[in-house]
């Protein structure tokens, strides 16, 4: 993956990754005596030179024992001596030119699953190759003494390999059986174990045929599929976790004796006094007792314009303090806060949703009884026909092996792994294969507005027609503030030559704007009624979205801001409509703002909807037989994400939203939504093809097996051939870009077909 890989664009989305010493301490863990470890996510690392720069910069800090970059996961692991305060990692990296944010260290539990799979795969691979070598000489006609010896050797190799590599399947099969269900692992386990047991018996009886090679290579093929599947999910999970955390880790609490301590959010209780600096997120629901500021509530309620806060204002957990420091008193514990409420609604929605059974499991519930019945029939039939129990059992087992869903077990995961890979290449993270199956069934798409259809941050409009000098001055002033409008001004002036005006002192007046002096001249940037000397002039201006730059009280320039649509938003919506989707906007923002966006994109809308309302809307849609894809980013969308049939979130979404969504897209463009859906549909088509191939194979092979013509050689060739066919078919899945270039006529045709089918 080069500089242009999906990870490189994460940098654009990184918000303020503030990491105070206390936060670093909270996110670190003890790894040895007196040594703590901190993991940092650095999305922009991409080459050998970066590794050197970072390791040198961090390694040079006092107290750092070692710093190690992992280029594959774009992470840095720093070990530092815990006697002193944590060294300034984030600041050092920023000076070296890398945006970084803290990465929560979790227990190594999940690492274990992957290495267990890889070890099982290695053992199965070793055993399969060696048993195959011995089998080849048996097939080429070894004398009976040699054959018996080779069978015994095979058994000795197969037994430990079966016990070690097979337990992954046995465990899962046992779990399914205990809950009175079947999955793919049940026929696999039964087939493998019976084949081994029968072959062992035959070996003791000096029989000519043994199926050790079949049972072990079956395990080997299936483990490949399983390992790839796991790696795909793990990679998506890590990539999503590597995004900047948007919730507060802790807060500075003022104690009764006047001391300030930094407490993790979970330990904050009602009535505690919290000092909230500008740029921090509100940790729990609280009331302001001192100070004035403005708050960015877009992630919480979907409202775009910042909300002023003064003494007595009630704050919701998760909102971002923008301009001034505040002293707040917690009114609820974290569990009873807005965030906790959302989590509870999520859980309720989860329970309400009908459980989805994956295609493979549904196939297995038909397939497993059928296979077992066929084998049983073969056993009984041959027993009656010949009266030779041993012969009948051998044939029954041959049926089990030949039908053992090697191809079937690979049919689904292979396609899904390839699909996830294609999606990953275009910056879409797929959390698990089941989500891909659900996404293919979607016929309705519900969008949130702020942060999903729009970028969630304002931009200066009509910048081209304005006085460049004025923009320069305004941007120089604005660079002292973190208000979204100030950010937008700085961004707009990025290409312009820097202003020559030198300021003596800049002060920010929360709720009003910025003020600065340059010699005897006073500049003000902010609300019209505050910045202008004559309030009458201010009254003529439209209120909310405008900011004025004034020089000694007279107007220099007026700036207007608007939240912009994501690039390709209208194209994406049109594309979705063309494929016959019902597309809607459901937002928590005010009617006027939602109507504007909805009209621009030509879709129906619901405005000022509360989180519970969003769930109700989606449940009603689902109840009317529709399959809903929810695309949203805010905390208020999170319960709806869970309630929907499938869900997507942008990388800039709130933490729990990102974790709840089935897919996360990293790029700015909204065309990720139609892309993901078309990949999912293609994947479904390929999965069906693979099933058809597997069934066709069985139709040919089962009669041969029932007739008793299957020798170990035939079984080995048939199994490998069908597996390779299925894998090759999966690789045909095209990447989204190529799909997007498909002629429109075809898309319209299929849209018509879908509408007709719906009627």
């Amino acid at each position, binding site marked *: 993956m080069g500089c242009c890989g999906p990870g490189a664009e994460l940098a654009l989305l990184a918000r303020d990754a503030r990491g105070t010493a206390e936060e670093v301490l909270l996110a670190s863990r003890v*790894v*040895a005596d007196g040594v703590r470890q901190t993991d940092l996510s650095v999305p922009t690392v991409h080459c050998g030179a970066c590794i050197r720069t970072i390791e040198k910069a961090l390694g040079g800090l006092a107290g750092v024992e*070692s710093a190690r970059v*992992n280029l*594959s996961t774009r992470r840095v692991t720093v070990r530092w001596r815990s006697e002193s305060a944590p060294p300034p990692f984030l600041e050092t990296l920023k000076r070296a030119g890398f945006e970084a944010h803290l990465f929560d260290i979790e227990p190594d539990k999940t690492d274990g699953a992957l290495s267990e799979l890889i070890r099982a795969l*290695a053992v199965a691979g*070793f055993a399969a190759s*060696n048993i195959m070598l011995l089998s080849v000489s048996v097939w080429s006609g070894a004398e009976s003494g040699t054959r018996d010896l080779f069978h015994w*050797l095979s058994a000795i*190799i197969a037994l430990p390999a079966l016990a070690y590599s097979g337990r992954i399947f046995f465990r899962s099969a046992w779990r399914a059986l205990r809950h009175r269900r079947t999955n793919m692992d049940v026929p696999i386990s039964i087939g493998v174990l019976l084949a081994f047991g029968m072959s062992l018996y035959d070996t003791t009886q000096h029989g000519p045929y043994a199926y050790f090679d079949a049972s072990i290579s079956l395990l080997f093929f299936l483990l490949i599929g399983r390992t790839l599947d796991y790696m795909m999910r793990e990679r998506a999970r890590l990539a999503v976790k590597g995004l900047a955390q948007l919730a507060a880790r802790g807060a500075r609490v003022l104690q009764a004796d006047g001391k300030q301590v930094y407490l993790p959010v979970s330990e904050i209780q009602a009535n505690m006094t919290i000092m909230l600096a500008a740029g921090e997120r509100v940790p729990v629901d609280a009331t302001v007792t001192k100070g004035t500021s403005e708050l960015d509530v877009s992630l919480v309620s979907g409202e775009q314009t910042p909300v002023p806060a003064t003494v007595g204002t009630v704050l919701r957990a998760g909102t971002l303090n923008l301009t001034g420091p505040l002293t707040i008193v917690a009114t609820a514990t974290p569990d009873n806060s807005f965030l906790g409420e959302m989590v509870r609604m999520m859980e309720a929605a989860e329970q309400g949703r009908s459980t989805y059974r994956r295609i493979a499991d549904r196939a297995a519930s038909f397939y497993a009884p059928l296979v077992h019945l066929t084998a049983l029939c073969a056993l009984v039939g041959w027993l009656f026909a010949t009266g030779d129990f041993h012969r009948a059992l051998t044939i029954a087992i041959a049926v089990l092996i030949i039908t053992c869903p090697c191809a079937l077990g690979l049919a689904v995961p292979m396609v899904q792994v390839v699909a996830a890979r294609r999606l990953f290449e275009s910056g879409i993270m797929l959390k698990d294969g089941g989500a891909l199956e659900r996404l293919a069934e979607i016929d309705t798409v519900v969008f949130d507005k702020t942060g999903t259809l729009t970028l969630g941050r304002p931009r200066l409009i009509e910048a081209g027609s304005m006085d460049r000098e004025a923009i320069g001055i305004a941007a120089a002033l604005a660079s002292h503030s973190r208000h979204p409008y100030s950010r937008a001004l700085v961004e707009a002036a990025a290409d312009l030559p820097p202003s020559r005006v030198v300021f003596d002192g800049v002060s920010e007046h929360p709720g009003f704007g910025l003020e600065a002096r340059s010699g005897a001249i006073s500049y003000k940037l902010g609300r019209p009624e505050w910045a202008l000397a004559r309030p009458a002039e201010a009254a003529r201006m439209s209120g909310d979205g405008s900011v004025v730059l004034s020089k000694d009280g007279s107007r220099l320039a007026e700036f207007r801001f608007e939240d912009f649509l994501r690039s390709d938003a209208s194209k994406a919506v049109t594309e979705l409509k063309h494929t016959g989707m019902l597309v809607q906007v459901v937002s928590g923002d005010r009617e006027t703002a939602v109507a504007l966006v909805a009209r621009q994109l030509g879709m129906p809308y619901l405005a000022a909807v509360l989180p519970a309302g969003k769930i109700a809307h989606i449940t009603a849609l689902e109840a009317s037989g529709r399959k809903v894809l929810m695309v949203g980013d805010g905390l208020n969308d999170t319960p709806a994400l869970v309630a929907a049939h499938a869900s997507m979130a942008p990388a800039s979404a709130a933490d729990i939203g990102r974790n709840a969504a089935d897919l996360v897209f990293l790029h700015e463009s909204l065309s990720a939504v139609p892309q993901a859906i078309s990949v999912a549909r293609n994947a479904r088509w390929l999965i069906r093809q693979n099933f058809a191939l597997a069934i066709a194979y069985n139709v040919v092979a089962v009669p041969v097996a029932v007739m008793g013509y299957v020798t170990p050689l035939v079984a080995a060739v048939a199994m490998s051939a069908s597996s390779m066919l299925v894998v090759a078919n999966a690789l045909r899945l095209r990447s989204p870009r190529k799909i997007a270039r498909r002629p429109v006529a075809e898309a319209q045709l299929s849209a018509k077909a879908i509408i007709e089918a719906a009627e």
Partner: protein
Amino acid sequence: MIDYFYLIPIALGLGLTALAAFMWSLRSGQYEDLDGAAERILHEETDAPLRKNPHTP
């Protein structure tokens, strides 16, 4: 035919050695950062992989 049977334990032994070597390389963290390892070969500093437990040899 029987004269060549001594080759079988040798073949199995070689296979087991390879398996053991793979297990060791997996355990010692050599697959943790494949992209990074390709770059680190050009550096003069130490290029041993990061260990899970820093103070065990």
